């Protein structure tokens, strides 16, 4: 029973992460990964971005984005490995690597954003 309630909680994180990822990642990735580096649109200046990330609200947003997106990845990737590659026998290892990775990334993001000056 304990495992089931755990699973529901992880699914909620997956689901919330899926919503956040769908709404904001395409536009952010398009700008930061393609439009700015390739010069299609002038990139924001360093001082402007610094001021933007210094706002507590921006940092809260970035933290929630990292946290939910990582748990979305962990959940989905875990089942991709189970079903897609049929390696369900490595169940525990996959579980630890996926959620461990997500926890690690979330702590990293929290640390970076909390100490951002």
């Amino acid at each position: 029973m304990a495992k089931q309630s755990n699973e529901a909680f992880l699914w909620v994180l997956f689901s919330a992460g899926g919503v956040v990822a769908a709404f904001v990642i395409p536009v952010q990735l398009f700008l930061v990964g393609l439009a700015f580096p390739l010069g299609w649109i002038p990139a924001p200046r360093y001082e402007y971005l610094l001021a933007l990330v210094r706002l507590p609200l921006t940092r809260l947003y970035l933290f929630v984005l990292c946290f939910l997106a990582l748990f979305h990845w962990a959940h989905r990737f875990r089942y991709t490995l189970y079903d897609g590659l049929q390696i369900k026998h490595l169940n525990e290892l996959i579980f630890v690597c996926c959620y461990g990775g997500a926890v690690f990334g979330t702590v990293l993001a929290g640390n970076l954003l909390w100490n951002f000056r």
Partner: protein
Amino acid sequence: MREARRTVRYTEYHPRWYRPQVSTWWWVTRWPYLKFILREISSVFVAWFVVVLLLQIRALSRGPEAYAAFELWLQNPLIVLLNLIALFFVVFHAITWFNLAPRAMAIRLRGRRVPDLWIVGTNYVSWAAISLVVVWLLVRS
């Protein structure tokens, strides 16, 4: 469950289960299967985006030189290619996610179910609005 397993004694020569061998590549043979796996793999690129975002925040916090180096790294053709592939996958994720939304949540208004098209439509309109806000925030400087 475990207790039960210990106490139950199974017959020694029980018949073999019928388990057809499924290839590891079962998902490449049909488009719906392939689409399913592609959708699942999109999560890897969601994680990749978080990596880029964290590198950007770290570069920002380290000063203008570090940030210039980060911007140069983004211009590396390999990274551009990777971001292009990642963009394809995250857009694929967004579209499949929005199209599934009405099946994930059935909303009722005054006892009647809200048509699927409305829910999907609301999602796409919100997507466009949020994207515009992000563009406005990042491009106006």
